[in-house]
């Protein structure tokens, strides 16, 4: 498990992508783009979103609290959050 404090942008992107693909295996993240709203574009319901958060937390070792959920709106904001 990588140390969250040393995650690069690319590693963060990879982790987010992997976590999303676990929920939506054929998600077209290029189409969503870095600023597309992930929940709306990928039609994640609240259970999907919880699954995404758990997956992301497990793979990066990052502690993700409910208060942090708004920071996980887009790919760009996810990367910023994970590399903060």
């Amino acid at each position, binding site marked *: 498990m990588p140390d969250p404090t040393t995650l690069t942008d690319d590693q963060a992107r990879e982790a987010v992508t992997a976590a999303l693909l676990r929920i939506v*295996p054929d998600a077209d993240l290029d189409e969503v783009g870095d600023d597309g709203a992930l929940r709306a574009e990928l*039609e994640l*319901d*609240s*259970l999907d979103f919880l699954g995404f958060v758990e997956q992301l937390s497990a793979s990066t070792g990052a502690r993700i609290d409910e208060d942090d959920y*708004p920071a996980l709106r887009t790919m760009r904001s996810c990367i910023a959050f994970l590399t903060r």
Partner: protein
Amino acid sequence: MLHLIPPTYEQLRRTFTWDRARRDLSGLPDGRGLNIAHEAVDRHVGAGLGHRAALRCVDEDGVVTTTTYEQLRRETNRFANVLADLGVERGDRVMTLLGRQQEQYVAALGTLKHGAVFSPLFSSFGPEPIRERLRISGARVLVTTPFLYRRKVAALLADLPSLEYVLVVGEPPDEHTLSLTAEMALASDDYEIAPTDPEDPALLHFTSGTTGRPKGAVHVHEAVVAHHATAELALDLRPGDVFWCTADPGWVTGTSYGIIAPLTHGATLISYAGEFDARAWYQLLEAQHVNVWYTAPTALRMLMKYGAGAARAHDLSTLRHIASVGEALNPEVVTWGTQAYGRPIHDNWWQTETGAIMVSNYAGMEIRPGSMGRPMPGVEAAVLVRGENGRARVVDDRVTVAGPGVTGELALRTGWPSMFRGYLGEEERYRACFADGWYLSGDLARVDEDGYFWFVGRADDVIKSAGHLIGPFEVETALMEHPAVVEAGVIGKPDAVAGELVKAFVTLRPGFEPDDALRRDLLAFGRHRLGGLAPKEIDFDQHLPHTSSGKVMRRLLKARELGLPEGDISTLENAP
């Protein structure tokens, strides 16, 4: 100062009658009958409340659009005129596939004014559930958005010959669609509701059975008597309250209590376009000064994860009554709610078929955490002794009421106003829901010595996930359209947050490898076809258990999943 002591539950049970409840509504002028939209909108304007906010739509960024009762009267008149211009007749079905936005409310009430039947679709459905419901309903009109149209409807049109008009909010994306916005702008805001018999069909809500296609439960205009009375008694709703029902109008709760009941009381209803988000929800409760909040166990369990501190960080002092429906509310959540909100959460029970709350914990009544409460005044509920198939035992057309503590099928004495009047086009399935003057709910429950009801489980294989009823058959059918799948068995897997998650077991055709790539492909396939009904988990199983008649034994799949003893398997055969 005069202090009125509210009647106790026992007093209400003695004095309440549906006839008296009917008198709380005004009826159409000059004795022309009873129409839900008149009770919800026009009569308040007639009473001088036209300036009051009927609807506050809050978008995802917190921007609020308010619609007064007078504006709602005019908008719904326009919508009714649009339907009239299109040649829509009384009893025709009008479906919506919309988010939680103003047009949803206008379409619902405008359809009812016109005497057509309103049938909402959950906007998270995938194309398959949408196609199936449009086909069964025979809807002539669909109201949707350009986005949802392109994504979920455009490809289905060839299969839906009875669908004549697709109205979209804003610019029409192609030649098969009309702009609702443009039609509304041209339509008159004057409309007189035609005489409406209380028994005229008004609402069509789809629900799921264990087998077969979704069932369209038909409700009539008289249902409003129950919507109105139950909102007062079970939700403590009062005129002028700010009321937020978090359910989407695509489900029965979101129509009975998310549209109709608050408006018949002259309350202000809140509609939030966003998905669940703890912080946004608390901000909304605070900023909108919500008095009565009607939500669901899944949401409450998510809020519980967020912690009581977050709730207490907001000023929720206007909140007077909290209620929950969708599945049994676990006792821990009830207890937690009291800590977090300083007031109890009132669980209640009802179904698509019952149209309104039937069993409830009432304001002022002792709450037993984990219990759904006691029957509504005017409603007789009982637990019936079960037979071999797990449902109520019927011998010579007679059922037997079980004593306290015995688990049996929860049943209701027929005759309450919001009882469904049929499954559209399926008389046989409708009749099978009744025996000996009782409606058989398919839910298992027990009643304690003091008359409190306790939910035990479903008597059939229907899945309850995040408060939504999901038919395993519909999910299995969709999965079996995948070229790799020869058969599928779908169950509800217990989940701490959602109650149950949809889990599928699939048998592959020869030549397909049960690997991760195929699993991902099937998950994606399910999401495309089914949207929000799609399985969250898929396992491969080349030996699905079958009954002697060849049906997949979902119960056994579930027992295996839970690691429970599989019980008597004498009725099973190995899969061919």
